[in-house]
């Protein structure tokens, strides 16, 4: 219960849950890496 809650779009997950949030950031590269 003490774990922070991360809301991802319409999905609410625990920060200790699946690493789903890793796939949404960083965003696209506009020029070069």
């Amino acid at each position: 219960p003490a774990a922070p809650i991360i809301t991802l779009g319409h999905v609410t997950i625990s920060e200790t849950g699946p690493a789903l949030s890793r796939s949404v950031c960083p965003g696209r590269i506009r020029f070069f890496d």
Partner: protein
Amino acid sequence: QVNVLRPLCDSPEAEEAALLARDYLNAQHTHGYKYELNRIEDIKIFPGLNGTDTYVLEVDLLETDCHVLDPTPVANCTVRPKMMTAVEGDCDVVLKKVGGVLTVTAFKCKTEESTEDCVGCFNLLPLNDTAALDFVHTSLATFNNNTGNVTYAILEVGRISSQVVSGGHQYLAEYVVTEANCTDDVCMPTSDPLAERGICTAKGFTRSHVLQCKMFHIPMVPVVDANSTVAAVPVSPPAVHIHTGSMSHKHGLKHHKLTPLHNPDLSGHLSESSESAEIVPVASAVAVD
């Protein structure tokens, strides 16, 4: 328990915040070049009371070829290619959204140049490189020989780089010129707010070079400070222009850096890691007549 919203880094919400941050960071400068957004690294939104949200944004910015005095919108500027020694800015930016309006409240930036090896490429030189500055002044003389009765002086050297070629060191220099007041052989930049300015690019050798200058008028407004001293500053003057450490070209750095720190509210959302550890007080607002 802390609730954190994590919108997609490429969501319209993140893009809106990132572009606002980009424009705000560019507006802090009267030196150097505009930066364009390359990537949104991360975004967190902390919902607050009364509908006030705090955005914490990490962005990667790249230096463009538009000087900050160039009126060209940054979206129309060209990002410098990597082989021309790209300069990158990594910034943490804190924004507040109140009543649907986003404003920047704090930021912290690190500016670095690309360190990739590139044989035969132009390499940035320190902005106080003696030989390169000789080239700059020689090319300015070439320019002044073709401007009729008007003489121009250097306001700022933005970039100087060199490339080793068969004839020796070829230079590529970019600098800002403004109309000058001359007495005998000494010319100083004029303080006339209506003076014409220009951004010049010179390439070649001291004995032979090509020069291109883009001239423009920057709207200037008079500013009166507490001592009634009148000075001219560009319209929409920078809210803050903090330089910490050895940042100016007098210290031999190779490029103009982004303002490293602006944290008037001592926001705890800025990350610990930074080149700028100290908190710098923000100058109070200047009255504009």
